[in-house]
């Protein structure tokens, strides 16, 4: 009798307990489903319509994609992304690893130096872009300063040169992100078992060899995380370009995200803007899916 009574008493609470996690998760789940996947789907649908300055649902098939392929500005933006993304990721990784290895040598004031390198990450890209815009502006930045100091022949006009403006974006982005890569690798380096290094030293390996052949290869997961984070920063880059060059001179420093915003929202070509957004999503998935696949598979093996 008594056990039944207890069960009866406890059962609503039990039910609540069983449902509570779902109840608590439901709102955020709903927001993600609607606000994220729902709108991806909507953008996907819009990219097949003739939507102009307002969404419309007249089906035009792949016409918007064909127009996009025909658009010179889109190709400039895509090439810029390849160039910017490649250089940004490559240089950030190299600089970040180098800084991490150097900091790993048990130097004095490490905490202070680490903070100095990490601080740019605390700034938003808008601030970084604006500051570098001033620094690199030939009329008032480094260029003018060095010439005022007497170095008459000095010329640093990349920011206003359509062929070189992308490198300015790379400089600013690397300045911002390499400290963060350093922090990632430093954490990884601290996790390496010191006995391995000592064993290698006993075998007579030099310090560069130890790092290149033993320590860094063991940091593969860190390398992949850094690559993932940097790749998506590169693809969604918008604020840096908006603050630093606004896509100029001309549209020489345009990136796909800038292209998408300007066509969708200020040019009244929502269909084409959506098509470009879907292609960007495709680019991200092309990187992300193999990564997730390998991650999930290795988990199952464990």
């Amino acid at each position, binding site marked *: 009798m008594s056990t039944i009574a207890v069960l009866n008493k406890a059962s609503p609470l039990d039910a609540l307990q069983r449902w509570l996690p779902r109840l608590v998760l439901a709102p955020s789940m709903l927001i993600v489903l609607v606000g994220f996947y729902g709108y991806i789907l909507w953008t996907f649908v819009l990219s097949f319509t003739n939507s*102009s*300055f*307002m*969404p419309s649902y007249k089906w035009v098939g792949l016409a918007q994609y064909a*127009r996009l392929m*025909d*658009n*010179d*500005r889109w190709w400039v933006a895509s090439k810029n992304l390849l160039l910017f993304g490649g250089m940004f990721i490559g240089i950030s990784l190299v600089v970040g690893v180098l800084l991490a290895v150097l900091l790993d040598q048990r130097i004095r004031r490490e905490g202070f130096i680490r903070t100095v390198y990490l601080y740019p990450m605390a700034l938003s890209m808008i601030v970084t872009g604006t500051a570098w*815009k001033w620094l690199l*502006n*030939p*009329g008032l930045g480094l260029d003018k300063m060095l010439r005022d100091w007497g170095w008459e022949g000095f010329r640093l*006009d990349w*920011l*206003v040169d*359509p062929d070189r403006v992308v490198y300015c974006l790379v400089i600013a982005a690397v300045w911002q992100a390499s400290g963060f890569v350093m922090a990632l690798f430093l954490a990884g380096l601290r996790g390496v078992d010191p006995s391995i290094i000592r064993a290698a030293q006993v075998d007579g390996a030099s310090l560069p060899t130890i790092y290149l052949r033993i320590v860094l290869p063991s940091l593969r997961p860190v390398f992949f995380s850094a690559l993932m984070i940097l790749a998506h920063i590169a693809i969604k880059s918008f604020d840096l370009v908006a603050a630093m*060059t*606004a896509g*100029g*001179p*001309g*549209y*020489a420093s345009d990136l796909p995200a800038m292209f998408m915003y*300007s*066509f969708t*929202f*200020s*040019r*009244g*070509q929502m269909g084409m803007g959506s098509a470009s957004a879907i292609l960007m999503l495709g680019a991200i998935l092309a990187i992300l899916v193999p990564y997730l696949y390998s991650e999930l598979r290795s988990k199952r093996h464990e």
Partner: protein
Amino acid sequence: MNAINRLAAVVSLASLLPLSALAAEPGTVEVTHWWTSGGEKAAVDTLRKQIEQDGFVWKDNAVAGGGGAAAMTVLKSRAVAGNPPAAAQVKGPDIQDWGALGLLTNLDDVAKANDWDALLPTKVADIMKYDGHYVAVPVNIHRVNWLWINPQVFAKAGAKVPTTLDELFAAADKLKAAGFVPLAHGGQPWQDSTVFEDVVLSILGPKGYHAAFVELDEKTLTGAQMIEAFSTLQRLGTYMDPNRAGRDWNVAAAEVINGKAGMQIMGDWAKSEWTAAGKIAGKDYECVAFPGTQGSFAYNIDSLVMFRLKDENDIKAQNDLAKVALEPAFQTVFNQNKGSLPVRQDMDMGPFDACTQKSAADFKAAEQGDGLQPSMAHNMATSLAVQGAIFDVVTNFLNDPKADPAKAVKQLDSAIKSAK
């Protein structure tokens, strides 16, 4: 307990207050706009005061940024949600797009009561109508084809105020030799296209301009004169500061005001910068039509479109706004601050400065013939998509010193075709 009771009483009383205010509240008129700079804000404040004097409530919805792009995004999302403001700053062909969505109200009654048909120039009135009915009220007329000159700089360099393109280049050479920047300019797509539009108006004339930017006629767009327009633009580019990329127009205007540069090609809103610097038209600065466009008038008309509302009182407030926007008091203050021309044709031009008086005379003259043309660079001539396509070609051309004018006209034509 006592404290909680007291708190509850205060809260309930406080919540009653706005309720009672609501009950007695007259109609509200909410206006979405991006008149946020100093002079513009002063101008909008006169409108607000007038509305409040008439016993209505003004709800300001100013959205700054992006030359109106931010405000448009707000407006679109509100319209989609079925909650549009009473009025919004929308102009030119966009009025037709909004009209086609069936969201705009009919202002014919206000127009009739205040005799808009007689007050407004026909061309202006036509832009304000959708399907034959008034849906918007114009507030000003900007002229785009102006050249702003600092006479002190010209005197120092020994240059003469130009009336033809050849004289313009002669003056620019003199300025360059004397160590000035001949042409102040900001490297932004719309500024590049503003210069290009003036050059086209000068070389092709108003008829050719119309064929190119309104009819988008292929023969005109790829013709020899258009090639000449591109090479002239390229030549003008050599007189601009090479570090101009991304510079705002008012920063470029300041270079002329401070005597660093000799002239600037810009619409009449540039005057607000001169006025703010305490300079007087005709004495401290000269305004002349862009060389070769005398007698033509490239217009850029700001207007407020009115959305369909439900509340009876709000509609009254909206109609009042439509009426007040065209009244002489507002037209005078607003246009003195904006540097533009009043839309009413019966205004006393006495309180305006020499530049605006000249603009008014030129407008009347241009209206008689073909001279009155919509500005391409300011979204009066084409859809936003076509305008964007032209911007891309022009700005890319001007920023590439090695660009080929013959190739540019072909790019222009194909870009326009794919955007249409």
